């Protein structure tokens, strides 16, 4: 990468200046929870497959199927290179002293080839992301069904440079709309709805809270999309920064029924670009509108797509969507500073 000093003036508008990171669900982003279990060294390697079979019969790993029964010993040069998981602590019988006799009292599992048992901590849940898998594996080996897209997204590499250039352009439209709102004395928030298939902008809107306390940029855009489909219930004519673009008006012609079924339905399949993280009302409005994906610049204090709630991945709701943040972060951040508060750092970036 080019060193900072060599960058041209105005390089903040390069797509290199921002990275889109996914906003994952709680399950995908939480720490690795551990539970206690008993393990024992395998003294005689030849007994391994029999031990696995017999232990699976006596102590099946119910609820922790992701756990591998056997692990290679961490320290090198130990006399016994393998260790086996005997059972979860919660499945073990009550005992005063931990011993093979108390753990495996019956004949179901012959003790041949097993060493003195000990307590280990193992991951309680199946890892969902590579970072979770790497943390979990430090404790005990687990299986992992990797979602490659999530792994790449977490590295900030999901979008190719041409894709980023397109995203950059859409978010610039949102930033321009935000500035129009600011010039009108309203909150500097802008949003753009895009059809990713045709790569066309469907609606551009900005905060209009002076007209209506609920006309946040996202709510404005949702109504503009409705207007593009012949619906809608407000007029934003007094705001040149709020526009909708009708899809090719082929609707007038006598279309076969097959075509009509592919008519747009609310925001299904559309992407939203918004300069800052939506509030609870706007986030849920996007669920109701069946938005495809949401891209935002910066987080907000009461944000509902990552900060206070993760409405996009909320269990029980009937529609979920992907969310990415950090798109044009600097430009979106700069919108929130009143002209009197622009720092020198910010001015240098211009």
């Amino acid at each position: 990468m080019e060193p900072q000093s060599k960058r041209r003036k105005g390089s903040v508008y390069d797509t290199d200046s921002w990275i889109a990171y996914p906003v994952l669900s709680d399950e995908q982003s939480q720490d690795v929870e551990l539970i206690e279990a008993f393990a024992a060294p395998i003294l005689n390697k030849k007994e391994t497959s029999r031990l696995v079979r017999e232990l699976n019969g006596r102590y099946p790993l119910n609820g922790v199927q992701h756990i591998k029964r056997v692990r290679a010993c961490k320290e090198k040069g130990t006399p016994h290179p393998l260790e086996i998981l005997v059972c979860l602590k919660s499945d073990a019988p009550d005992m005063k002293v931990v011993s093979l006799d108390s753990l495996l009292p019956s004949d179901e599992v012959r003790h041949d080839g097993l060493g003195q048992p000990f307590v280990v901590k193992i991951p309680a849940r199946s890892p969902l992301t590579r970072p979770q898998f790497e943390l979990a594996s430090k404790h005990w080996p687990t299986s992992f069904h990797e979602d490659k897209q999530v792994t790449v997204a977490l590295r900030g590499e999901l979008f190719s440079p041409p894709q980023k250039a397109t995203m950059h352009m859409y978010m610039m439209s949102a930033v321009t709309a935000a500035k129009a709102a600011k010039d009108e004395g309203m909150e500097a928030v802008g949003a753009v709805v895009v059809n990713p298939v045709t790569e066309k902008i469907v609606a551009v809107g900005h905060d209009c809270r002076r007209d209506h306390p609920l006309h946040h940029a996202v709510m404005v855009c949702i109504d503009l999309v409705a207007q593009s489909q012949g619906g809608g219930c407000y007029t934003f004519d007094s705001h040149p920064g709020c526009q909708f673009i009708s899809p090719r008006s082929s609707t007038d012609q006598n279309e076969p029924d097959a075509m009509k079924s592919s008519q747009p339905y609310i925001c299904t399949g559309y992407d939203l670009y918004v300069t800052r993280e939506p509030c609870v009302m706007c986030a849920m409005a996007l669920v109701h509108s069946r938005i495809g994906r949401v891209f935002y610049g910066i987080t907000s204090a009461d944000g509902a797509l990552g900060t206070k709630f993760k409405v996009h991945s909320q269990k029980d709701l009937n529609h979920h969507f992907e969310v990415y943040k950090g798109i044009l972060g600097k430009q979106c951040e700069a919108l929130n500073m009143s002209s009197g508060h622009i720092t020198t750092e910010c001015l240098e970036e211009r």
Partner: protein
Amino acid sequence: MGTEEESKDASAASFCPSDEEIQKWMGTAFDMAKDALESGEVPVGCLMVYNDEVVGKGRNEVNETKNATRHAELVSLDQLMDWCHRSNLDVRSVCKQTALYVTVEPCIMCAAALRLLNIPVVVYGCRNERFGGCGSVLDVSSANLPQTGTTFKCVSGHRAEEAVEMLKTFYKQENPNAPKPKTRKE
């Protein structure tokens, strides 16, 4: 933004409809829901009452507007605002003295909208297990969201079973405007 005036705050906190008022206004809300069901619309009745006067009355307008946010509550809020403008009254101070009566728990979006307008009390019939914003899916009504208006009090359970029955009847019919569902995760 969003800080309350101390003087009005005290009255807002104590502002709560009497049992008699609940009976009366919820009766009207249920009548509206029944009418909606009979005309094949989402059976939700909703009204906003200020000073013993209905200042907003709404029904779900999602299908005709193609705007999925046109829930009965938001339609009623728009009417309340129009009423304020006609009566030359300040929306903010009217909202602080307005109760919302609705047959079903407001959804997450509507609950947030009610907070943003500082509505102090919401009386509702049954829970909304699919979208409820007053505790069923999320508790937006009492969550700590300092930038999202003020919390509101909920009075729930009035004629709940009746409200559920109406919803069940409605959802048995299909929404002809929705796209064909892809495999639903549930």
